């Protein structure tokens, strides 16, 4: 069974982060929300494996609970 990678796996993360910001540049909140949603589906389709996706959802949720400013 496949396992979600939670170790650093993005080549040149600063570049990816800049690309992400650039993609959202000049967009309204609604347009950005829509772009993010489309991006989730594109990435999820690339992953495909339901078990990995399940782990990804869990990891994203887990990180939210760890945020001390909001707890």
């Amino acid at each position, binding site marked *: 069974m496949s396992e979600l990678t939670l170790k650093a796996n993005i080549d040149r993360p600063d570049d990816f982060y800049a690309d992400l910001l650039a993609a959202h540049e000049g967009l309204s909140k609604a347009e950005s*929300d*829509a772009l993010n*949603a*489309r991006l*989730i*589906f*594109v990435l999820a*389709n690339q992953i495909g494996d339901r078990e990995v996706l399940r782990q990804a959802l869990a990891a994203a949720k887990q990180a939210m609970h760890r945020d001390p400013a909001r707890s």
Partner: protein
Amino acid sequence: MTKIFETPLYPYERTKDQDAAEPVRHPVVVIGAGPIGLAAAIDLARHDVPVVILDENDKVSWGSRAICFAKRPLEILDRLGCGQEMVDMGVQWNLGKVFFGDRKVYDFNLLPEEGHHRPAFINLQQYYFEEYLVNRARVLEAEGKPINLRGGSKVTAVDAKDDGVLMTVETPDGPYRIIADWVIACDGAGSPVRSMMGLDFVGRVFEDNFLIADVVMEAGFPTERWFWFDPPFNKGQSALLHKQPDNVWRIDLQLGWDIDKEKEKKPENVIPRLKAMLGEDAKFELEWVSIYTFQCRRMEKFRHGRVIFAGDAAHQVSPFGARGANSGLQDTDNLIWKLKLVMEGKVPETLLDSYDAERVHAADENILNSSRSTDFITPKSDQSRIFRDAVLDLAEHFEFARPIVNSGRLSVPATYDGSPLNGPDVDEMPRRTRPGAPAVDAPVGNGWLLSRLGDRFQLMTIDAEAPDRIDVSGIEVERLELSAKDDPSGALAERYLGDAQAGIYLMRPDQHVAARWTKFNEAELRSAVNTATGRI
């Protein structure tokens, strides 16, 4: 012209039960002469089980209502002897379009699998469907089969006891009482029988209203299913256009929650909505208008002693996916053979509890699917709308997103995984025909496999030896001898053998697989028959 749904088809007639001093006893009473009640009664009568059907009305359903009938119910109707009329009259379709806002996002073709007698779906008004069932009941009656359809007969009291069910029936001549050994309640989502027995019906209510308009028009639209998300003519809502026979078109418009239903139903309000959709110049006539809300819910148990619930009376789903009438027909398909064996005293009464187990499982599957369709079509939060719209935007450009678009997952039969009736399986055989699955049709010789299955236990052998007949304590199992060579297309082998060289299938009377092996073993067969009939 008087429409079929305005014509009394089974007007009230006085029966001798009304003159009897004591309530007359009947083996089976079916309450409700809708599609499910009629199918149940026809199946019983075909097997010479006397049945009385009671219905407060005397006509088929008003308006088209259920319009989409799937392959499995058509196969059940073939077994009941009236599938051909439905298919001949029905509109067949495979193509569809999905629109988002003012643009078409994609086309689809259902591309039904080859090698099946029946199409994936037909569209047919419920009134025709019921009319053909009434006709079938009349033919059986004329052949001397014990079926008695009583219109104008409203059940107003039900007293379910351990040894029978006492009912009061209201008629134009006043009330009378009858007793039934068994009652099948097919009296719809609002089931008065369920209420009279004080039984639960819980689930999820969807806060939305839909306007259904059936219009008669000579239109240039193709025979396709068109579905709109957030169209310009119905902002923020959804719409559906689908063709039925006789140039009747089904139009379904989501209206939202805060509306005045009576006002919205008036033609002066409906017609402008339809013109906005069909064009100002469209010429059409309104045949039927209705506003519905819906719920996804079911009874906790479908069997309550000698009263057994089927169809919408037992479970209700949203209309997306055509899972109402289609699943109801599968209820009675599952129930009738079991009830017959119990009535003959050949199997323990507890076999009927497997109806509960198998059809509750199917109802849960239908509720899950139709709830998910509803959540996609009518997003319940800002975030769910963002995701929904993202899928539709992606679907316009990329194929990968199209399977995520959910405008109704059309009805497919349940496989009774985990059923107490299931026997042994073989790993190298195809999953789709595993124990619990409905038989998959395939070409056989000059005909079709499914026309040779049903109504009794059968041992289907494919390139394998077995006795022609085996009696298992009063239940006769008849061999159906086949060879992979009977189907040059290879579908039979692909669907039933897979990697195996030979196959032996124990088939139930409802054409579901009970057990399978690669070679015959009498002890194992006997054990599987006993398992499949609730004896173990």
